[in-house]
């Protein structure tokens, strides 16, 4: 903890960065009406050396702070050092691969469960750090996916219909997702209207499926969509399923390199499939 605050102080004092995006103490009481994970830490934007001591990192610090790299108000604060979990590091690389951030925009303060901090000053350094991590789905995640894969088509349809029936279309999943950065989301295009606006069955199905598909091959499995959902829809399952599909079919993992082609949006003239020609 002390290390994190010290690094933040040095970076701010030297003018290397203008802001440190990290975690501070949140409201403090876990919500009593929600049983799914609710973070108790909150994002803080430290610009003053004297406030660096309020940075924390513990198990409650789960939000993928890379979401703020795409926020205009935060970008205006200047160059940032981002306290980054493994998922946030991969988000940075994915954003770089999509030409949304570049080397001079940020530094990463890579943190892990042991409280260690690594200052990563370049995208290349982030790549090297990420390469040494275990970036696969966890055994528990795979087991859960297999549980759903074992259901027949009708059961799966029922499961998701029930889940999506609670969707309010509040777009908290989109807001929390660092890779949902389109300035105009498909759901907001109305000439023509691709996705129905109302939060009825069809609107909810199309919205959630569209979002999952748009993240196929891009999602880094941070889990913030599920954590953000006020009605507890397990959106991460859709993303994890697509992560495993993309890995199996294209041998591709998102967020591993600052220059990369996305499996689902890359065309190669020598593609063995002929439907695409």
């Amino acid at each position, binding site marked *: 903890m002390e290390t994190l605050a010290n690094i933040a102080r040095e970076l701010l004092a030297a003018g290397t960065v203008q802001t440190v995006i990290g975690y501070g103490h949140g409201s403090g009481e876990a919500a009593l009406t929600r049983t799914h994970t609710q973070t108790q830490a909150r994002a803080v934007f430290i610009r003053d050396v004297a406030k660096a001591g309020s940075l924390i990192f513990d198990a409650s610090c789960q*939000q993928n702070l890379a979401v703020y790299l795409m926020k205009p108000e935060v970008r205006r604060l200047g160059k940032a050092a981002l306290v980054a979990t493994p998922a946030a590091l991969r988000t940075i690389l994915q954003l770089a691969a999509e030409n949304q951030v570049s080397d001079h925009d940020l530094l990463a303060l890579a943190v892990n469960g042991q409280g260690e901090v690594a200052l990563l000053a370049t995208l290349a350094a982030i790549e090297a750090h990420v390469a040494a991590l275990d970036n696969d789905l966890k055994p528990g995640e795979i087991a859960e996916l297999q549980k759903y894969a074992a259901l027949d088509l009708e059961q799966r349809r029922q499961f998701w219909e029930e889940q999506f029936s609670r969707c309010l279309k509040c*777009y908290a999943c989109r807001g929390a997702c660092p890779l949902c950065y389109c300035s105009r989301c498909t759901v907001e295009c109305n000439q023509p209207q691709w996705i129905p606006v109302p939060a009825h069955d069809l609107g909810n199905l199309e919205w959630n499926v569209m979002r999952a598909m748009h993240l196929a091959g891009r999602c880094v499995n941070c889990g913030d969509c599920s954590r953000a959902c006020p009605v507890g829809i397990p959106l991460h399952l859709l993303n994890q399923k697509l992560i495993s599909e993309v890995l199996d079919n294209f041998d591709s993992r998102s967020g591993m390199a600052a220059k990369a082609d996305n499996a689902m949006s890359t065309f190669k003239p020598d593609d063995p499939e002929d439907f695409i020609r």
Partner: protein
Amino acid sequence: MESDKKLIGRSELEKLFSQWQSQGTRILAPKKNNDTIDFALVTTLAEVSLDQVQTVQSAKTSVFPRVEELFSFTSRDGRVVIRERDRNALPATVLFGVRPCDAAAFAALKAIFTWDSPDDLFSARMEKMTVIAVSCARADAYCFCTSVGGGPGATAGSDMLLTETGPGEYLAEIVSEKGLMAVGETSGLRPCPANVNKEAHLAKLEPAFAREKVAPALARLFDDAAFWAEQSLRCLGCGACAYVCPTCACFDIQDEGGGSGQRLRCWDSCGFGLFTLHTSGHNPRPVQSQRWRQRLMHKFAYMPERQQVLGCVGCGRCSRACPVDMNILEHVRSITEAKP
């Protein structure tokens, strides 16, 4: 009417549930579904969950559903025929187990939906609904009803208020004709003895700010862009706060179905960037800090000024639902404490 106080046991409440059922009245009450507790159709008291501080969503769906057909239309040979919703077909409803804050929220919704031209769908739903609230025995850190004129045992907005005075034993305050009708001829209701101390069974919640200070402070801070930018830096601009709010009433109108279809009213939120985007491309609230300011101004300044009712009942839902811990109580406090 003057409040009528009775004692009622769980078995009498169960009788009431079957009575409402037999009358064809639908009952909406907090119900556990997966990991969340929300208002849903129930038939028996056993299905109702009353131990939570709050449901995730508010009870506003009972009178302002997240999607609602306003009318349907058919177009043939250049002629459009509109078919209005049948107001009589709207269901008679008992809303059971709301908290006093939610019951109080109907006054704010009513103020909006009857402001200039009364919204008859909303009014018809309100008219056909009986609100039976249950007092709060506990509050959490997000609750602040006592700061905005409510209380854990307040009766405003309820037709009947139940306060649990012992295991399965309730003090029933019948505060309206509708409440009286809901009880009907049910036997087993006992007169309330004078020694029943309602206060002893209520959550203790000290006011956290002086509400008369909020609107003047907001007026002073309106142009302080730096203040609002600081307050809203971590806000993601989603609509979770507005959609779980019992008083947020903004909506969007959507036509579906091409030549023949429905005109639908859907929830909307001032937190969305597109909410105020003009066709010209101009957006009077282009940044999130202005949208966050709007949310607070609307609830704590504009509504009291225009409709003589606060747009916040202190239920704390927005703070609980916020993915990034935007805590409205904390924000309102910092507004009242901001140096002029």
